[in-house]
């Protein structure tokens, strides 16, 4: 295993291997969303929802993933007409791999409980006693989570780059701006679906 396997598996593994792994990741994410009661608003974005049913959890994951695939594929065609659909499908599926770790970590590390406690104390003086070591631990945990989230974006970028042979920096800037605009739009749009 080298850096290429970790950061750009798209340059090494065949589309079949990547798809099988990506499909597995999709189902793991869907199950973890249900068990942690978290709805997937878009790729890389999750919101807590205590009343989330199993079918809704899966449906939200399907909608978010499929819409991301369509959008990113259209972007890819804009940069390189030879881009294959399967490469974009694999990119979107695999870049979601770190998500279930983030969800499980937030749920079972106590961060979720801490966030709820802080939310209930909004407007009043904080009643939670916070010691220095626990703050350091919390900051370390947040940094670790950010690293995992950034890793997901790195996977998305490398997958897109490999699929489209992206070279120009202008294309990279356009991709980043369009992707973030799309993600925000999707989070708003999926809210109005009322699932």
């Amino acid at each position: 295993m080298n850096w290429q396997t970790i950061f750009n598996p798209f340059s090494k593994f065949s589309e079949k291997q990547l798809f099988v792994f990506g499909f597995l990741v999709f189902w793991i994410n869907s199950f973890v969303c249900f068990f942690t009661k978290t709805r997937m608003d878009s790729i890389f974005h999750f919101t807590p929802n205590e009343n989330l049913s199993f079918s809704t959890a899966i449906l939200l994951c399907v909608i978010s993933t499929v819409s991301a695939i369509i959008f990113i594929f259209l972007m890819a065609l804009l940069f390189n007409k030879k881009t294959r659909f399967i490469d974009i499908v694999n990119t979107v599926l695999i870049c979601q791999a770190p998500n279930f770790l983030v969800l499980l970590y937030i749920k079972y590390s106590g961060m979720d409980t801490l966030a709820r406690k802080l939310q209930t104390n909004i407007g009043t003086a904080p009643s939670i006693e916070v010691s220095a070591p626990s703050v350091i631990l919390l900051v370390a945990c947040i940094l670790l989570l950010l690293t995992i989230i950034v890793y997901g974006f790195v996977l998305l970028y490398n997958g897109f780059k490999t699929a489209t042979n992206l070279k120009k920096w202008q294309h990279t800037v356009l991709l980043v701006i369009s992707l973030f605009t799309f993600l925000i739009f999707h989070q708003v749009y999926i809210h109005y679906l009322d699932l």
Partner: protein
Amino acid sequence: MKLPIVCPSCENSLRVSQMKCEQCTTEVNGNYDLPLYLKLNREEQDFILEFFLSSGSIKEMAKQAGNSYPTMRNKMDDLIEKIKNLKF
């Protein structure tokens, strides 16, 4: 022995100035351009040869090299671009 294609001193492209028949030792002098294939570096020449030997299948080449299909196709696209630039 590896055929040098760039000048070791100034790194400009080399040209053919002399050829010799091994049989009768006839020598031809002139100022000839290198064929397009020889203007490519060794790695690119090997890539083209591999492509030919795998009957033009990028998929097969990718499998043999242990790379993915898009990685190999990107290499091919870059090479096509380079050859186009060398040609015109």
